[in-house]
């Protein structure tokens, strides 16, 4: 009796923590399943706090996991699936921002920073060479 009451109480509360795949979700084809997993890691669970659909046990995440697998079985490419999801939910759904439009600065900035740094480094080395060993 108490057990049943407790189970009912348990069911009422919202979980704060995450889980991944539920039993029976995984595809039998190991190659497709591994594609599904790595794709799921790049898709944001829109109702969660910074979790991918692979990590979340929210209903939406589960639906999207199933949808991704369904599409993979039908033979869609990863790009097709991402396109379908962005059409539906916007770019927010992708953890890897697209390399386009207003995201170009996001992708290029780190490399520009690195190049500037290396350039400054080489400049200083060359300058010290010209100044001789003491100076």
């Amino acid at each position, binding site marked *: 009796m108490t057990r049943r009451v407790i189970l009912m109480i348990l069911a009422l509360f919202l979980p704060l923590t995450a889980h991944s795949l539920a039993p029976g979700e995984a595809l039998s084809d190991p190659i497709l399943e591994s594609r599904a997993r790595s794709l799921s890691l790049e898709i944001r669970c829109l109702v969660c706090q910074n979790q991918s659909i692979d990590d979340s046990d929210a209903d939406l995440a589960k639906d999207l996991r199933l949808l991704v697998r369904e599409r993979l079985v039908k033979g869609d490419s990863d790009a097709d699936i991402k396109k379908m999801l962005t059409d539906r939910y916007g770019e*927010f759904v992708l953890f890897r921002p697209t390399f386009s439009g207003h995201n170009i600065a996001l992708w290029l900035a780190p490399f520009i920073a690195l190049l500037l740094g290396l350039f400054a480094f080489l400049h200083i080395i060359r300058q010290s060479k010209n100044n001789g060993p003491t100076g």
Partner: protein
Amino acid sequence: MIVELGHFALITALLVSIIQGGLGLIGARQNNDYLMGVSLKATHIQCFLLLLSFSALVYAFWRSDFSVLLVASNSHMNKPLIYKIAGTWGNHEGSMLLWVLMLGIYGAAFAALSSKVILAFRARVIGIHGFMSSTFLGFILFTSNPFERLLPAPYEGNGLNPILQDPALAAHPPLLYAGYVGFSITFAFAVAAMLDSKMNHQWAILVRRWVLVSWVFLTLGIGLGSFWAYYELGWGGFWFWDPVENASLMPWLAGTALLHSVMVTARNGQFMRWTLLLAILTYALSLIGTFLVRSGVLTSVHAFANDPERGVYILFIIVVSIGAALAVYARAMRQDMPRVQANLMGRESFLMLNNVFLATATTTVFIGTLYPLFVDALGFGKISVGAPYYAAVLMPICVPFFMLLPFGPFLSWQKTKASKFLKPLLGAVVLSALSVAAFWQIRPSLGVPVAFALLGSFWLIFGALAAPVGRARLFSTGGLSRLFKLPRPLYAATLAHAGIGVMLLGIIGTTAWREELVVAANEGEQMSVGDYRFVFEGVSIHEGPNYLAERGSLKFLSGAREGDRLYPEKRVYQAERSQTTEAAIDVSLMRHVYAALGETLEDNRRVIRIWLHPLVVLIWLGGLMMALGGMVGLSARRLT
């Protein structure tokens, strides 16, 4: 009464901090020993008042005084004592009070430990630090008062978010803040040096201890936070590139750069401009991290716009303090500084490269964290920047960085003969290759990318160890006794650098070889994952101090642990009306067996999830090695 006393102490601390700031700066300008002396004393008074104030709040939490609004909204009678007390800093107001308490402690510690420093310089540092303290005390008193009363007092409080009711998360904020706030001393040092024209290597020698102290705390704080996320969030992830995590990673990366650049500056004043700038920016990043976490801007730009009071105040603190520091910096840069003399094969140039890589990494994390806010604020809609972005962008930085890293400790200042490092590092290459080959034997399906990653981590470990071995010429006569007589900073570097490799090995282990099992099981059903077999023995109900738990029991049927049991739990905290999953972890160096209890299905079967996380513990062991390296460095009399 005690609460009012705490409130009063906080207000008095604000006044004292203004006196400390004003008298310190005026005294230093007029060279008035009396004023400067008062300012020094004020640091101790301020620290004492803040301790008093903080204790009063802890007392209110301890006694569950629900007439205090903060206690009523964040605590509960049923909580165990430790979480009542730790709950003091498990909320915005209390954590900001902890922040200023740290400021007070660092100020007093600096005043007490700097008696050999020229008085005018001490007074400047303390004066600047006093005003930094004033701005935060003002922030607390005007926007986030922890002592606000709630009348009539409710009979019961709202409780503390159960995932925060955890020993690691009780210790996480104090460690993290001890790191963040430590950089306030570095910052005050930099500004004082620029005002005082004390920009020389003596200054750098003094400042580096404080850099190191802050860095050690920050390393421990981040490590503990990551460990908590690993076992508490239910599936064994250790880093999520969450903006809140990035907020602590940015000052850590910048602080690591500072730690290295200050070595050059402490030797002969070179890199002075860069070191000063880094000292300012590291603290700026600590402040920005606080702003991001505390203003609510992360949840959404719009939530921030609706309730901007706190965020705007912190933004104001950032703009004023960092703006002023940069103005002083621009003026100071007109002075002549020692020219950088760097030979490609000298230690200077490798430390410079270290800074290029770390500064790029800091920039990357900064942009990745703030770009979505920026895009959203400009009306381009919402985007997400997650782990795949950071992996893609940081990889090209890490690869050359880690390849070059082991050379650093071998190099002498200015110029080094290749013969000094050629043999030991060749040895490291051979050992690394052999280790990868050994892994290939154990796991034939290794794959080329993983093999290269492994090679990198072993290169870091053996390369770090090669430095003391090579410099002591271990394999020629008397080598062993020389090994124990090397300069202490070399041991520090060896430990910290090897720690990076150990951490990388842990990351590879759990990322590449994680095994996972998800099943729906009846009582008595057997399951297996990897080399392990288990039987599910069913679920029982347990009563905790302030929660009810369903406790699953999994018995090992094979392997070294045969007969042992894992007890993953699902807990319900009635007061807080929420549920947590408590994973059960079987800990060993080689692998963690990580079990979590899932939901009950309609046919009464129970979802069980078991992961094998190979080598995962090395992630935090590596972090610990880095922090230990920092401590060894601190214990050295000279830090080069």
